[in-house]
């Protein structure tokens, strides 16, 4: 089954989503939104992996396996991020990311 959509279209979509996630992670001030922007960036990378697994130089199932592993790690990262957020909120009563500067020298 060959695809009529060129691989560059998928890569461009992933690039746009990655840039949106990067901009959101750098500009948003709510920590939950920063975390979810990071999830969006990881998702864009997963699109790249799956696109190369079908339309790349050597198509095989390995790209999908890599995407599965990165999803598992992303889920663990989201849970840890939320737990850190909870601990911070209990101590500082803020979710604002530029008030979390305790370790700033």
């Amino acid at each position, binding site marked *: 089954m060959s695809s009529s959509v060129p691989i560059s279209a998928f890569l461009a979509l992933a*690039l746009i989503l990655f840039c949106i996630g990067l901009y959101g992670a750098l500009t948003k001030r709510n920590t*939950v939104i920063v975390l979810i922007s990071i999830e969006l960036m990881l998702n864009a990378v997963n699109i790249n992996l799956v696109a190369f697994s079908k339309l790349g130089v050597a198509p095989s199932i390995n790209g999908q396996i890599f995407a599965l592993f990165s*999803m598992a790690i992303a889920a663990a990262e989201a849970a840890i991020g939320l737990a850190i957020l909870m601990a911070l909120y209990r101590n500082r009563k803020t979710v604002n990311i530029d008030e979390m500067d305790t370790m700033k020298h």
Partner: protein
Amino acid sequence: MSGEFLAFIILAFIAVSGGVLLLNLTKVVHMVLALVATFISIAGIYILLSAEFLAVVQILIYSGAITIIMLFGIMLTRHDDKDEPKGGWVKKGTLFLGVAGFAAVVYLGIYNLDFPQLNQELHVNNTEQIGIALYTKYIIPFELTSIVLLVALIGAIILAKRDDKKEADES
């Protein structure tokens, strides 16, 4: 224009507009809900790339679990929070230029990328192929992932646990 291309255009449009809504909405809960549209259309993109199992996993994990956990995070902190725009146009402009420059450079590398299409039967018994690969070639990373998930679970519980003794002293 084939149906596949049309489906790709529609899904890509929904995904990008969800991302743009994430950047522009003011209420935090609305931002997370805009991201759900993006996650579901990414699942559609996976189906176009003949990765049916990954599409189902995407809907389960991202638009299910991660969205719910983020909504819990919002509710348990400041649920009526608004991401009020703060000044700092210089910083935002510089960041936008930097991200746009990054996008332009990467786009130069990918815009006419084309590989000869090889036929690979990825869509035939997709889940079975993934299972066979996971349990033969990738068995050690697979087991290591379970350790990572266990450590993350315990770590999250310990981090978010109430420090009873300290809080009793404070109150």
